[in-house]
C-alpha cells in the first residue's frame, strides 16, 4: 500500500468536506451551540436553599424547640426560617412561590411531651417546589421522631416496671436522651458527574455520529459520478482508496470531538478529565466510525438508501447510547442496553473521567469499543465480499 496516495485521498476528502458549510455546521457549530444551551439551562441549578415559614399556634416549649432545630447549626445553610402570623398568609406565600414550604404548629402541641394526643403538624407545600416539600417533610419527620421517641421511652420504662409515681421524673430524663442512630453526613471525596459535563461529550459524540452519513453519501456520489471507476483504473492498489476514505472519516471525527472538548472545557468549564485519557477515548470513538461507515456502505445500494440507513444508525445509537438523555437517571435496563453501543461506552468513560475516576478506568471502555469495531468491520467485510461474489 502506498502511504502518500492514501493520505492524498484522505486529505482530498477532508478538504472537500470542510468546504461544505453544512458539514461545518453539523460537526462544529451545532454541538457547541447545544452544549452552551444545556449549560445555560442547568448551570445555575446548584446549591439548595429554601425559605420556610413557621406559624406558631402553640407558643410552648415544643414549638420553641422546633423553631430552634430549624434555625440550628445543621440546617443553617439549607433553611431560612420566617415567622408568619397565621395559616392563611402562609398558604398565600407558599402558593406564590415566595416561600418553599410552611409549618403550622397546632395549639397545644407542647402537651405532646406529656404523652397527650395532639393535632397534626401541617406542612404546607407547593407542587412547583417538590424538593423544598421533601426537605420540609423530612426535617419535620426527624423532629417528631425524637419527640415521639421520648414519649415512647417513658411508656416503655413504665411498662417495664418503673413505678408510675416516677413518671414526671422519667419524662424529664427522657427529654434529654437522643436517638441511638444518627446520620453522619460525609463528603464522598469524589465529584458527581454534572449535567453540563455530561451533555458536552453527549452532544459532541451525537454530531460525530453524523459523520457516518457524510462518509456513506460521499462514497455513493463518487460512485455515481464515475469517480470511483476512474480511480480504479489508476495505478493504485484497491485497498488504498478504502483506507484513504476511512482515514478521512476518522480524521473528521477526531477533529469534531476534540474541538468540542477543547471549547467546552475552556468556555463552559466542562470537565473532560485528564487530557491524555480523554484523547484516547476520542480516538477510539472516531475509530469506531470507520467500520460503521463501511457497514452502511456495504448494506446500501443507492445514495438515498445510504443516507437513510446512516440516519437510522445515527439516531438509533444516539437514543440508546444516552446522547439525548441523562442516562444516570435511566432505569438499570436502559443503562445496560447503552453498553451495547460504542457511543454509550465512550460517554461512560468520559463522564467517569470527569467525575474523578482514575485514568485506568478507560481500559474496559476502550476494549469494548474496539470489540464493537471488530464486529462491525467483520460484518462489513462479509457483506462486501458476498456482494462482490454474487
Amino acid at each position, binding site marked *: 500500500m502506498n502511504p502518500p496516495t492514501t493520505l492524498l485521498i484522505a486529505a482530498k476528502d477532508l478538504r472537500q468536506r470542510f468546504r461544505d458549510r453544512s458539514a461545518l455546521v453539523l460537526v462544529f457549530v451545532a454541538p457547541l451551540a447545544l452544549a452552551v444551551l444545556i449549560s445555560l439551562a442547568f448551570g445555575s441549578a446548584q446549591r439548595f436553599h429554601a425559605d420556610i415559614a413557621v406559624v406558631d399556634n402553640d407558643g410552648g416549649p415544643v414549638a420553641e424547640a422546633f423553631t430552634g432545630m430549624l434555625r440550628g447549626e445543621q440546617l443553617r445553610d439549607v433553611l431560612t426560617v420566617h415567622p408568619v402570623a397565621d395559616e392563611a398568609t402562609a398558604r398565600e406565600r407558599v402558593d406564590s412561590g415566595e416561600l418553599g414550604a410552611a409549618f403550622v404548629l397546632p395549639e397545644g402541641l407542647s402537651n405532646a411531651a406529656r404523652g397527650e394526643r395532639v393535632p397534626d403538624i401541617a406542612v404546607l407545600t407547593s407542587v412547583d417546589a417538590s424538593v423544598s416539600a421533601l426537605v420540609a417533610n423530612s426535617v419535620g419527620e426527624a423532629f417528631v421522631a425524637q419527640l415521639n421517641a421520648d414519649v415512647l421511652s417513658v411508656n416503655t420504662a413504665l411498662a417495664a416496671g418503673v413505678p408510675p409515681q416516677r413518671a414526671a421524673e422519667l419524662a424529664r430524663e427522657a427529654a434529654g436522651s437522643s436517638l441511638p442512630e444518627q446520620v453522619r453526613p460525609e463528603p464522598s471525596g469524589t465529584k458527581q458527574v454534572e449535567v453540563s459535563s455530561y451533555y458536552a461529550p453527549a452532544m459532541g459524540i451525537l454530531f460525530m455520529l453524523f459523520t457516518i452519513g457524510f462518509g456513506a453519501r460521499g462514497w455513493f456520489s463518487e460512485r455515481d459520478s464515475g469517480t470511483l471507476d476512474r480511480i480504479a483504473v489508476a495505478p493504485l492498489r484497491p485497498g488504498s482508496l478504502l483506507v484513504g476514505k476511512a482515514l478521512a472519516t476518522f480524521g473528521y471525527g477526531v477533529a469534531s470531538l476534540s474541538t468540542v472538548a477543547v471549547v467546552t472545557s475552556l468556555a463552559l468549564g466542562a470537565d473532560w478529565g485528564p487530557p491524555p485519557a480523554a484523547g484516547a477515548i476520542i480516538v477510539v470513538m472516531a475509530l469506531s466510525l470507520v467500520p460503521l461507515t463501511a457497514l452502511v456502505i456495504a448494506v446500501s445500494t443507492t445514495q438515498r438508501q445510504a443516507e437513510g440507513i446512516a440516519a437510522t444508525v445515527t439516531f438509533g445509537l444516539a437514543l440508546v447510547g444516552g446522547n439525548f438523555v441523562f442516562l444516570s437517571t435511566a*432505569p438499570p435496563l436502559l443503562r445496560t442496553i447503552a453498553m451495547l453501543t460504542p457511543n454509550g461506552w465512550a460517554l461512560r468513560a468520559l463522564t467517569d473521567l470527569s467525575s474523578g475516576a482514575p485514568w485506568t478506568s478507560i481500559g474496559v471502555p476502550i476494549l469494548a469499543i474496539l470489540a464493537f469495531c471488530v464486529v462491525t468491520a467483520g460484518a462489513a467485510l462479509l457483506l462486501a465480499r458476498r456482494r462482490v461474489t454474487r
Partner: protein
Amino acid sequence: MSTLAIAAASLRRTLRDRVALFFIVALPIIAILVVGATIQGATDIKVAATEGRGQLAESLLNEIERTDGLTVVVRPDEQAARESLRRGEVQAAVLVPDDLGEVLRSGATVDIPVLTTAATESEQAALAAVRAAVAEHATPLQAAVFAADQAGGTPASRLELARQLRAATPSVELRAEAVNADRGILPAGFSYSAPTMLVLLVFINAVAGGSTMVENRKLGIYQRALAGPVLPRQLVLGETMFYGSMALLQSGLIVAVGAVLFGVNWGDPLAATVLVLLWALVGTGAGMLSGTLFRTPEQASAIGPPIGIAFGMLGGCMWPLELVPPALRAAGHATPHAWAVDSWTVLLAQDGGLVDIAVPLTVLAAFAVVLLAAAVHRMRRALV
C-alpha cells in the same frame, strides 16, 4: 385534482421508503420509551445503600424505602455505592455499618455515614429524607435503651416491648398538604415524553423532510410539472398538503402509540385535536420553509435536525422548563415548541379544555401563519 395527485405522489414516495418509515414510526416509540423512562427516574430522589447485616439493618433499609418520593438501590459494598454516587445514579449513599445490630443492642449509639458529593437540591433532599427515616427507625431503639436503663434488663430484651407499645402510644404526626395541588406540571414518565416527543419529532421530521422539496427543485420536477396543465398555485397547495398529511400521520401515530402502548391520557379530545392540527400546520410551514431556504438536500438533512433539537431543548421537550432559570424559560417561548408543550401541560396535567389553552393556541396559529406565508411566498417566487 392535480393538487391531490401531487400530494399523493409525494406521500406514496415517502411511505415506500422504509427508512422514512423508521423515522415516522419506530423513532417516536423508542424516543418516548427512553425519554419517558429517564424522566421518570429523574424526579425521584435515589439513594444507594449497603446491605449491612442482620435484622436491624434490614428494618432500617425498609424504613428508608418507605419514604415517599425516595427510591433505595441496594449495593453490595461501599465501593459499588460510591460508584453509583459518582455516576449520578443516586444522590446519596448510606453506608450501613456491618456491626449496626450488635452496637444498637448493646445500648450504644451508632453513627451512620451518608455520603454526598455536593450541596445540590437533590442531595439535600436525599440527606434530609434519610435522616427522617433513620430517626423513625431509632424511635423504639431509644425507648428500649431508656427502659433498660431505668428498669433493668438489656436494651435487646426491652426492644420488643418498645415496639409493642409504639402503636398504643400517642404520637405527633405530620400532615403534608400541597396548597396548589390543582396546578399540575406534566407528570413525569410517558405522560411527559409522549406529548413532548410529538412536538419534537413532528417538527424535526418536517424540517429534515424539506430535503425532498430541495431535491424536487434540483431535479427539475417542478419545472416539468409546470410544463403540463398544472398551475403554480396547485403545485404549492399540493406540497402543502403533502407536508401537512405527513405531520398529521405522524402525530396520529404518536397519539395512538402513546395511548395504547404507554397508557397516556391525552386529555380533552376536542382541545387535543385542535392542538395536533395546529402543530401539524406549524410543522408544515417549517418543513416547506426549509425546502425553500436550503440549497442542497444535504443542507436540509444536516441543519434541520440540530435546529429541531435546539428548539426542542429551548421549548421544554427534553426537560421540563420548570427546571431552567426564568430567563431561559422566557427565551424558550420564542420557539413554537414552548407554547405547544404549555398547551399539552394544561390538557394532560390540569384537565384543561379548549378555552384554557386559547392563548398558547393563538400564538401557535400565529407561528403557523407566518411560517406558511413565508414558505408559500418563497415557493411561488421560485416557480413563477
